[in-house]
């Protein structure tokens, strides 16, 4: 725990060193310096925005559509392209390659007999063969870039045109069509003749299986959902408390009793809320939960954490200014919402792009969001000079959020706002309030070490919440089914996407290859000097992209049974945009695959949100462009802030 032991204990220790450079980075700062954090915030922002203005956004079917668009081809390709970009290269042929490899796969499978000829291989031969062709393509791109020392932009632009031409040429040469189909002939053939389907059935499951929500009934679903999200949230909060606060040498053991009491109270409150519909019941439940949270968390803190020594109160002007601006923005949002007619569903005439209701929602959500951001900036500024000041402002922020929640409940016509947004905002307000109180009473942690508990709590909290959410999205109850909900299918492509992202993230952050990827993108010369096989790494990255293109091509082939020659042409820029929105630098050497995956989600939400909100599709690209620009700017801003905070 002291300087003497520091050299030998390495990463632990170094707590009391009198070196201002050794300031401990707290949980929030550590989260903020991750390259994908900007993308996460942008994704949440876009989701909240569309959730507010588009009806299907809160529903399972909406989620399924977004996942579908985000997963394949966009997401898988964005992740691979992000890795290549981190390695300092581009692949403009990646879009065209997706279609080309799908076509190759189908052509290899198609029967020789008949007018439209193909190679007639079994799928078990065709898939590895087309994969080999894909890898050869990547190898070719990478080797050309290395050998010629030309920018990969030029080299792969060449391969793009070659692929584009080859797709059209070969399709027409062999099947005399620009569409190549069909894989499910195999299944049909097997059905009619009783012969083997050459493994089509199994592979179809592997590449195109679908989970139809309507055929999975689970009555306990809502309980799992509630339990999972609430317990998960509680664990995350406790974990963050644990990570954020300094452990006391001797706490007050009675605090644990308070924590237990609080938990009981919260559970009781939830039960009250769940079993009653009356206004007084709701009030009782909510107050029970709030009181339980406060008592529980403060009790836990008293038992475990060190009390705050410096409680001086000071509010710097900067903090007051941004807080004041926040108040103005909040007032503006409330006035706007109150002034505009909430009943009017006509289009706003001068543009005809949104309805009056929609415009009201947009105005309100944007202004209120801006107010929240300004509030939090104020809190952050205040905290730098005085912990108590920051806590005070945070408490005021919490109360404003609660107040806005009641305003939304009173003013809004849609049930979505009246119930979901209301409860969510109240919950957020409660969490902020308790946090504010705790931060004024207990000291912040200033050293590393003993983080296992906190990290484990946060981690298991997220897992629990995901399980709860997953149950909610994947299953239906009998009553919903009776009410006649629409079909919602989740395809296996989502799993491919998740798996691919997970593997790529692991490779990028944990393996030598990942390190080398960052190195060749950041400084190729330097990495060669220390023995990194720079050229080989780049070739492998190009091969990774073409592997992803093959995967996407096969997924498409199994989904549509036909692929047309233009498939994927021009899509490569979407992959690059998704990667950049996700925090990957165009100059190489910086970025994250997780960020690229989230970038794909942002794009998918933008694409899906506009028709979902029933906006005029003429303005679609204007909206998408604006959203992407905002996401990229916000991302950049947050990253700059985070880097400065190092």
């Amino acid at each position, binding site marked *: 725990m002291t300087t003497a032991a520091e050299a030998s204990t390495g990463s632990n220790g170094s707590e009391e060193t009198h070196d201002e450079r050794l300031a401990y980075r707290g949980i929030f700062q550590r989260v903020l310096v991750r390259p994908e954090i900007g993308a996460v915030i942008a994704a949440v922002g876009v989701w909240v925005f569309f959730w507010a203005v*588009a*009806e*299907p956004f809160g529903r399972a*079917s*909406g989620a399924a*559509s977004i996942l*579908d*668009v985000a997963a*394949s*081809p*966009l997401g898988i390709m964005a992740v691979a392209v992000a890795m290549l970009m981190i390695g300092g290269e581009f692949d403009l042929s990646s*879009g065209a390659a997706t*279609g080309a490899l799908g076509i190759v796969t189908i052509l290899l499978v198609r029967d020789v007999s008949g*007018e*439209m000829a193909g190679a007639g291989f079994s799928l078990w031969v065709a898939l590895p063969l087309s994969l080999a062709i894909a890898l*050869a393509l990547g190898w*070719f791109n990478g080797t050309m870039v290395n050998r010629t020392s030309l920018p990969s932009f030029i080299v792969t632009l060449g391969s793009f045109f*070659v692929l584009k*031409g*080859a797709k*059209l*040429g*070969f399709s*027409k*040469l062999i099947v*005399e*069509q*620009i*569409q190549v*189909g*069909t894989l499910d002939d195999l299944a049909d053939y097997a059905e009619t003749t009783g012969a083997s389907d050459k493994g089509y059935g199994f592979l179809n499951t592997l590449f195109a299986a679908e989970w139809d929500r*309507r055929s999975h009934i689970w009555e306990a679903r809502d309980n799992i959902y509630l339990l999972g999200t609430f317990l998960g949230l509680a664990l995350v909060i406790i974990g963050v408390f644990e990570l954020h606060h300094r452990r006391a040498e001797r706490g007050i053991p009675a605090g644990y009793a308070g924590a237990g009491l609080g938990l009981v109270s919260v559970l009781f409150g939830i039960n009250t809320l769940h079993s009653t519909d009356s206004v007084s019941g709701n009030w009782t439940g909510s107050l029970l939960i709030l009181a339980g949270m406060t008592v529980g968390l403060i009790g836990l803190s008293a038992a475990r954490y060190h009390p705050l020594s410096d409680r001086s109160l000071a509010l710097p002007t900067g903090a007051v200014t941004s807080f004041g601006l926040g108040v103005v923005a909040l007032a503006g949002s409330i006035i706007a919402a109150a002034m505009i007619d909430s009943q009017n569903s006509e289009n706003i005439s001068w543009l005809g792009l949104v309805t009056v209701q929609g415009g009201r929602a947009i105005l309100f959500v944007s202004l209120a969001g801006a107010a929240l951001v300004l509030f939090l900036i104020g809190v952050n500024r205040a905290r730098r000079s005085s912990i108590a000041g920051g806590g005070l402002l945070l408490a005021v922020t919490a109360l404003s959020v609660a107040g806005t929640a009641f305003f939304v409940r009173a003013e809004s016509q849609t049930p979505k706002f009246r119930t979901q947004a209301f409860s969510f905002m109240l919950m957020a307000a409660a969490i902020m309030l308790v946090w504010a109180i705790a931060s004024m009473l207990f000291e912040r942690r200033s050293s590393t070490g003993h983080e296992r508990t906190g990290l484990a709590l946060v981690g298991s909290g997220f897992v629990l919440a995901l399980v709860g959410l997953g149950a909610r999205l994947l299953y239906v109850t009998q009553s919903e089914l009776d009410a006649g909900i*629409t*079909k919602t*299918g989740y395809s296996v492509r989502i799993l491919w996407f998740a798996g691919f992202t997970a593997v790529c993230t692991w490779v990028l952050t944990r393996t030598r290859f990942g390190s080398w990827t960052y190195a060749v993108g950041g400084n190729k010369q330097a990495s060669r000097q220390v023995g990194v096989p720079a050229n080989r790494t780049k070739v492998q990255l190009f091969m990774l992209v073409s592997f992803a293109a093959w995967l996407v091509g096969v997924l*498409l082939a199994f*989904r*549509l*049974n*036909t692929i*047309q*020659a*233009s*498939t*994927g*042409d*021009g*899509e490569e820029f*979407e992959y690059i945009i998704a990667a950049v929105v996700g925090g990957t630098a165009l100059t190489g050497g910086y970025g994250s695959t997780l960020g690229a995956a989230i970038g794909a989600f942002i794009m998918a939400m933008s*694409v*899906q949100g*506009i*028709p*979902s*909100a*029933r906006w005029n*599709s*003429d303005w*679609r*690209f204007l909206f998408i462009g604006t959203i992407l620009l905002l996401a990229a700017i916000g991302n950049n801003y947050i990253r700059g802030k985070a880097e400065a905070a190092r």
Partner: protein
Amino acid sequence: MTKRFRWLAALLAIVLFAAACGDDTNDSGEAADESGDAGDNGEAVDQTQGGDLTFHMITHSDDGPFWSVVKRGAEAAADALGVTLVWMPGNNDPGQMVTDIETAIGEGSDGIAASLPSPDQLVGPLQQAVAEGIPVYTLNSGANDYQAIGATTHIGQSEDVAGRGAGLRFNELGATKVLCGRQEQSNVGLEERCSGLKETFDGEVIDEFVGLDADQTEQINGIKAVLEANPDIDGFLGVGPVIAMSGLQAAQDLGIDLVIGGFDMTPELLGAIEAGDIAFTVDQQQYLQGYLPVVLMFLEATNLNQAGGGLPVLTGPGFVTPENAAGVLALSEAGTR
């Protein structure tokens, strides 16, 4: 290392060879007619009097499924009549088409058939061709401008008329609210199809751009999003063959029944019509748009006939429905429908 490169060289050689083969097959019309007719088929020239006639067909063709049928029609007509046909695909680039028209005039063409995707740029050069005494026909697009050019007639389908035909079909099939899905954001022809639908269809029409053909995943989900936002939609008109299939996929994904109509044809679309999943497709019989101009130009050059009587010659709309799908499918696979 060297071994690797030998392998690479072999691969390259294959690619180049294949590309060369592709060229041969694709441009057979041009190549065969230019060399074959002038040389080997010398005798045929005297008999038909067509051997020294050269016609230019200048279109915005992208050599996609639609235009390759037009091309086959034109080639078949040129073969039958023993004339030379120069097929000049503009690939949606009006600048290229202007150059091609000027080339044709410079070569002393005996007849020019051109499509007019963007009249502003193309009317001028074609008027010049007329002034040079070259017979001019418009095909596919240009119904509003052929008279201004001084062209003999226009051979094609009016998009508007085709859309109206689709509207009547939807009325017959009992649809009440139709989504007219477009695969391009700004294409006058596609918008005219949708506005034609609005004119004759009795119910409500929602007209939306839902995603490019190049990204069918997005297209399918775009359609799904509109369908979910408007649950009372019971019909879908895709103004292209790919988007029609996307509409079918979207409906299947959502587990709902839609009356689906499409435009133009691919084997998949015809298969779906045959199976009864898609109700109809509007067929503008583009084979005629290739075949007829060559015949009409030939007759004008050899017999001074002028067809059309100042009105356009319509090639559609024809409809492919479950009743005639099987026959059309066979012809489509042969490449003439």
